[in-house]
């Protein structure tokens, strides 16, 4: 049998692939709890300080936020294509779509970084002792909003950065891997990538679209 299993525990690559997918889904469920807990903190604060949060949310860049959502959805699409191509053993197309996915991920982080820079410049980044200037009615809780905004987007960005690194690693190890390993890896990384996309799908309206 040319196809190998990576773990001694499995008899066939097919069983290992199914186990890999299940393991990844369990991990995704676990990650959902992590983001869920942070979302809960945000939700409680959002209900307590609605007007302050709405006012603060207007200072985020809706244009860049929308653009970023589109970028990330596109990256998920290319990742889904990569999964399809690797299953069909169309390796060149798979490599191409994976590279596109990673590049779109980098684009997302670049846009996010631009937003951060704008926010620091505007003085609405109450972290690391940066000055906070906000002329709305309730600056204390507006600052709270921005604190949560930075926490949630940074946590998401960190996950995305990990995803980019893993995709890059996957491509670096592409040549040495046999067919079943490639399929397994693309599938596992893909599940993670889509999950990070789903997180953003929730973060975007929650942060950017409060009673706009």
């Amino acid at each position, binding site marked *: 049998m040319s196809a190998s299993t990576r773990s001694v525990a499995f008899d066939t690559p097919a069983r290992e692939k199914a186990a890999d997918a299940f393991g990844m889904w369990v991990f995704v469920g676990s990650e959902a709890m992590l983001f869920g807990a942070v979302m809960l903190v945000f939700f409680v604060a959002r209900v307590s300080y609605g007007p302050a949060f709405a006012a603060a949310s207007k200072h985020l860049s809706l244009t860049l936020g929308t653009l970023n959502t589109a970028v990330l959805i596109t990256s998920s*699409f290319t990742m889904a294509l990569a999964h399809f191509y690797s299953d069909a053993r169309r390796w060149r197309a798979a490599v191409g779509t994976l590279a596109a996915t990673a590049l779109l991920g980098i684009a997302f982080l670049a846009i996010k970084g631009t937003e951060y820079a704008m926010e620091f410049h505007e003085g609405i980044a109450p972290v690391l002792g940066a000055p906070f200037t906000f002329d709305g009615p309730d600056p204390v809780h507006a600052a709270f909003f921005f604190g949560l905004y930075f926490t949630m987007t940074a946590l998401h960005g960190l996950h995305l950065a990990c995803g980019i690194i893993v995709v890059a690693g996957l491509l670096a190890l592409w040549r040495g891997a046999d067919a079943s390993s490639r399929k397994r890896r693309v599938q596992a990384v893909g599940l993670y990538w889509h999950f990070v996309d789903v997180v953003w*799908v929730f973060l975007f309206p929650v942060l950017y*679209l409060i009673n706009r």
Partner: protein
Amino acid sequence: MSEIRKLAVAYVSLLLLLALTVGSSFFDLGGFNSGLNLAIAVAKAVIIATLFMHLATAGTLPRLAVAAAGLWLAILFGLTLAGQWGNGS
């Protein structure tokens, strides 16, 4: 090619939903904006999970994982909020 067509349809509908959610935010729906946004987010998540992540065809075990995470998130939110706001305050 039907697989690619399926993915493309998913992609386009995700972009349309994005346009819808951003567009709706420019209208005051009298308190329903947040609800609509969340509903759209859930719809997007369902599309990504079923079509991009193949949850529809992945068998029982992944669905079990998703169901467990959903149930436990409900517990986390439900009982915490009962503790925070149970007195109606």
